[in-house]
């Protein structure tokens, strides 16, 4: 709005009251660049990989995107709030382990384990938020500590209780089939198999977007991420906001964890390490600033789609797997550069 000569203000009118066209509004959205990036990646793989456009592949790509996207939505909110969570990847595994082991050891209905796991996982999130706001150490350090502790707890507890690195099967227990419907069922449309995680993903993104744009809490998130000191000065409850954001990540970790458990009915204790970075990457590709204060949940969803398309597209294109990580990195870098370029152009024209 301040760029000289970029807006034509009619004589006598206040430029703040100027009506912006829907196109202009669209150009101002943080996720616009990532959408362009996603389209570019899609077109690229549609040309390069024969089986990428097959209907059955769409289900696979969407599923890959949804497992990242479920976590990327709250992680994006957290990043807009100016914080990181390095424990998010392992927390998913912890959450799955808790519900599986609780149900098995107590011979309880599987749903009991699922809700105990919800409480425990929210406890991890609250721990992160509470320690962060109390100690005022950087979230990088706090959640790195949680990450390592959870990794150790996962292995230690599983070994202690079941004697091996994976949990015992709970597939024959009461409540399993209904829980599977909720967390790991799928719908077949033609020959496209759509997993229920896609619904969870859509719901979480919608919820996160609503919170961010329509609620007071959303304003607090932007304020806290922009400048915590200034936010506190104008009466934003910084501590409550940050704890709330960590609880959001924990909730999504619980959803992903239950999906992991109910799609395979046993859990390997060593999994999940490294996934936290994937969630952060998805949020960043989607337009979230690493410094906080800017971004959107829809952008994070588009970031997850880009990640899903790239990682599966490389496989469909039959490229040498030795170079997989290189291709992945290069594609993501290109998508993000395109994203940044589009955003810059958009800002210049509004």
């Amino acid at each position, binding site marked *: 709005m301040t760029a000289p000569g970029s807006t034509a203000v009619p004589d006598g009118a206040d430029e703040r009251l100027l009506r912006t066209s829907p196109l202009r509004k669209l150009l101002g959205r943080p996720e616009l660049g990532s959408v362009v990036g996603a389209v570019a990646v899609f077109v690229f793989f549609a040309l390069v990989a024969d*089986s990428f456009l*097959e209907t059955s592949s769409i289900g696979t790509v969407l599923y890959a995107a949804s497992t990242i996207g479920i976590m990327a939505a709250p992680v994006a909110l957290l990043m807009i709030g100016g914080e990181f969570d390095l424990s998010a990847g392992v927390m998913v595994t912890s959450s799955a382990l808790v519900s599986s082991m609780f149900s098995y050891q107590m011979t309880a209905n599987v749903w009991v384990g699922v809700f105990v796991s919800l409480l425990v996982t929210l406890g991890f999130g609250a721990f992160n938020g509470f320690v962060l706001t109390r100690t005022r150490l950087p979230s990088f350090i706090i959640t790195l500590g949680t990450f390592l502790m959870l990794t150790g707890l996962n*292995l230690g507890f*599983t070994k202690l209780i079941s004697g091996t690195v*994976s949990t015992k099967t709970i597939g024959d227990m009461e409540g399993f089939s209904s829980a599977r419907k909720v967390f790991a069922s799928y719908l077949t449309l033609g020959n496209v198999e759509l997993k229920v995680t896609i619904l969870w993903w859509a719901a979480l993104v919608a919820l996160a977007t609503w919170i961010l744009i329509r609620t007071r809490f959303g304003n607090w998130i932007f304020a806290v991420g922009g400048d915590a000191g200034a936010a506190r000065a104008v009466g934003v409850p910084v501590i409550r906001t940050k704890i709330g954001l960590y609880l959001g990540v924990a909730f999504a970790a619980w959803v992903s964890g239950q999906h992991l458990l109910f799609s395979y009915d046993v859990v390997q204790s*060593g*999994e999940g390490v490294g996934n936290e970075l994937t969630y952060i990457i998805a949020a960043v590709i989607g337009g979230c600033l690493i410094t906080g204060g800017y971004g959107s949940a829809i952008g994070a969803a588009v970031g997850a789609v880009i990640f899903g398309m790239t990682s*599966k597209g490389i*496989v469909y294109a*039959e490229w040498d797997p030795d170079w997989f990580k290189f291709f992945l990195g290069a594609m993501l870098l290109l998508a993000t550069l395109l994203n940044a370029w589009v955003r810059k152009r958009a800002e210049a024209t509004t």
Partner: protein
Amino acid sequence: MARVRTGVRAMGAVLAAVLGVSLMGCSSTGGKRAEERAAEEAAVGRSAVNTPRWTFAMVTHSGDGDTFWDIVKKGAEQAAAKDNINFLYMHNDEGQQQAELVQTAIDKKVDGLIVSLAKPDSMKTVVAKAVKAGIPVITVNSGSAESERFGALTHIGQDESIAGEAVGDELNARGRKKVLCVLHEQGNVGHEQRCAGAKKTFDGTLRNLYVDGTNMPDVQASIEAKLDSDKSIDAVVTLGAPFAAAAVKAKRTAGSKAEIDTFDLNASVAAGLADKTLGFSVDQQPYLQGYEAVDLLWLHRFNQNVLGGGRPVLTGPQVVTADDAEELAQYTNRGTR
């Protein structure tokens, strides 16, 4: 301008110097040239049949840059070249990711599928899906117990318990009394079976030692600490070739007399066997696992052949000692043993 020219000149001089040194300082042993010579000597794979160009995919639980799986892949590629197969290789060490990769192979409508079942529960659904889609599946390496139940044609690999028992026997023959079994992946079921198998047939005492396999200095320090604290240990068994080298170093610094034995083979293990720093090695012949898997899928497509009669086809254990080392060295050097 002058400065630019000096820069160019300086760079030219450096380049010339580097070239000169590399030309003058030729190594008469090893290096790329030796490797190229070896590759020329090895038979170059060429399609020997005129069956349609089927596509087979192999999806393993290997991490990035794993030497063992590289040999499996080489075997598979050699067989694919011979059988006129379009061979795809994918891997991921996370159960869910490996299952997703299998799903992409199903999406691609491959004509045959080779999977490893290190994490059988993650793979159950997706393997069933492949079988349902009419794709013949062969399991390799791990998963001998689950293979048939999941609907695979054959399992090609080593029975870990039997391999462990072979180690116990060999240790008896060598008159060992107190042995350390080093597990580099905590809770890997196959690893537990190996040490348990060795314990079963071994007459002396055998203790397990867990180390962090992704952190080599830690592996060495842990073994060293153990050898320091118990001088009566007279043999150390590692479960992977790279860990044998760490054990040898640990033995040296601890001043121990223990014999180092290992599972799996690579160039440095072959050299270790030859110069007697290593006692013996138990090879499960990874090249064979890849080669046979592709070949058997081809046979199944071409001729409806099945091998093993529902039981696993064993590729090991083959106990390798100093006597075999010299002959094996040329194969380990070209990366096929």
